[in-house]
């Protein structure tokens, strides 16, 4: 007898609000298979016209940075203002960039 997993896998849901924009993460849900995940994502996250396209990804397929690495990974960027492109003089014709 093989073990049956009674808990459905978790999926992350990404919704594109309109053509041309990117898919944005908007939440997660449980579903038994990819097709069910897409349908339930549609039912749970786009019922108020939030989207025109959905992606779902198995949550266990996402590789995430370790919160313990936060200091090493992200804090060193704090004092490096020169990495912002704010030291150029823009020609006035360029206006808002």
């Amino acid at each position, binding site marked *: 007898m093989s073990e049956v997993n009674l808990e*459905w896998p978790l999926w992350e849901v990404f919704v594109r609000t309109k053509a041309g924009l990117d898919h944005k993460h908007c939440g997660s*849900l*449980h*579903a*038994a*298979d990819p*097709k*069910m995940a897409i*349908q*339930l994502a549609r*039912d*749970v996250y786009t*019922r108020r016209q939030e989207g025109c396209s959905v992606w779902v990804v198995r949550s266990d397929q996402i590789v995430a940075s370790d919160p313990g690495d936060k200091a090493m990974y992200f804090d060193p960027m704090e004092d490096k203002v020169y990495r912002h492109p704010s030291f150029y003089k823009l020609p006035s014709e360029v206006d808002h960039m």
Partner: protein
Amino acid sequence: MTASISLNFTPQVEYLLRIADTCLILGQRLGEWCGHAPVLEEDIALTNVALDLIGQTRALLTRAGQIEHQGSGRSDGPYDEDQLAFLRDERDYRNLTMAELPRGDFAFTVLRNLVLGTWLKLHWDRLQQSSDAELAAIAGKAVKEARYHQQHAADWLVRLADGTDESRRRVEKALAELWRFVPEMFAADAIDDAAVASGLGPARSALREAWQAEIAAVFDAARLAAPAEAAFRSTGTLGVHSEHLGRMLAEMQFLQRSFPGGAW
């Protein structure tokens, strides 16, 4: 208490009420799943379907009320969707009997949604060519919703039939319980003949072949066999209902009967 309204039943009115009431009663039954579905996500999915059905009902009842009024000779305005939904006597509802059967378990609900959802989708598909422009417009919007309802139910049926011994047992039980209510879905009568003659919409009997083909494709995937046709004929579309409708209407109508025109 608000008294019941009585309608001037013309063939056109009856034709529209058969579809509208099937949507209304099925929608009400599905609403009973709110808070009770097996998982939260499916709870939302089922109530989405229920709300779509109620939306379709609203449009159809509004149109039925206008057509009913034309032939009624009454000097007041047409009955609106709420009056038609909540103030008719049980015998004046024209839904398929299958729609009013109690909620049952999840397998029963999935199978009923597939069986009736396919029937409704085929109606909407054909009704887009209705001679009644208003009805054609309603159908154009509803057919998109109906395609999803059918797909969602079909996928679930395959999963359940192909799932565990228990889920398959329940699907087979639902099949045995529901199948005797199928013949009514394709019965022929003068009301349908009139609808065909005027171009209002298709005869139910003309949809049987397409329905069987679509159901057979799902049943093949689910390794299910359709039972033989029963001799029993249910009669909801004639206004003669099972014992389940009256109980449902009592709950559904209570508020509008006790607080006429109540809104929130």
